[in-house]
């Protein structure tokens, strides 16, 4: 064998060795990748499984909350009127009048009264009664009906003795309803035909 042939064969052998080394190393790295992807798929499956009912549950919650908002807005408008209702909401959340009430689109065009400054009849009534009204003024510019800091005298007139004597010993209010701890037997004759007594023989 000539020297040239030996060198040629040596070069080919080196190429084969390089192929074996790098390909085996690549295979090992690919196996690590496969293992990592298996773990990823397992956890992603968990995410999909756990998040599957979330949409329905959140939609149900939103439906209930929407129903509650609609009921409360309806009650507020029914009792206070649309204009005062918008004013009340705006008094609690300044700027909310611009958004209006959800169930009453026409509320966006209502000029909200400044109920936070001009007090309602109910608030004034409470103030005149001397209760713990939070705001006790007839108008923003007028004097206070009662002194907000020392106004407890008015309420003390209602209960001069303070707490009722022996109030702690009084029995608690009864719990009523189907789930009450005290259940009474229902009479059997309720709803039944009235008893007929035999006619007197004269």
């Amino acid at each position, binding site marked *: 064998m*000539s020297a040239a042939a030996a060198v040629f064969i040596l070069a080919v052998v080196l190429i084969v060795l390089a192929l074996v080394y790098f390909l085996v190393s690549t295979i090992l790295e690919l196996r*690590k990748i496969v293992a990592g992807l298996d773990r990823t798929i397992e956890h992603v499956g968990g995410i999909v499984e756990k998040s599957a009912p979330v949409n329905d549950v959140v939609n149900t919650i939103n439906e209930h909350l929407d129903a509650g908002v609609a009921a409360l807005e309806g009650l507020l408008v029914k009792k206070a009127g649309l204009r005062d209702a918008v004013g009340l909401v705006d008094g609690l959340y300044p700027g909310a009048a611009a958004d209006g009430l959800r169930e009453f689109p026409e509320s966006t065009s209502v000029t909200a009264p400044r109920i936070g400054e001009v007090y309602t009849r109910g608030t004034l009534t409470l103030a005149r009664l001397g209760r713990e009204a939070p705001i006790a003024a007839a108008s923003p510019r007028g004097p206070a009906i009662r002194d907000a800091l020392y106004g407890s005298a008015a309420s003390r007139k209602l209960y001069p003795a303070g707490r009722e004597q022996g109030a702690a010993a009084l029995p608690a209010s009864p719990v009523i309803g189907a789930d009450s701890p005290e259940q009474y037997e229902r009479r059997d004759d309720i709803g039944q035909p009235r008893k007929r007594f035999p006619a007197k023989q004269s």
Partner: protein
Amino acid sequence: MTGLWIGAAIVGLVVLPIVVVLLKGVLDAAKSIVPAVDSIAATAEAGSKDLDAAALLLTTQEQVKQTIAGVAAYGGSLDVILDDADPA
């Protein structure tokens, strides 16, 4: 004989380095993917663990139902005891 020398030189000095460089590139790329996949797996595991609390949404749903039922009951009572607003 000269041709054999030339062939051996080409294989040893040209083909072998090219093969080594290409295979090393493939190996480096595969090695660089492994930490990324591990990171994705760890993130997915953390995300899956975060969603463990999603089951509590069922409790929230029930609480919302009860709350709205209570609001409806109170609203019905208020509707009875409070006068309606004067019609404009």
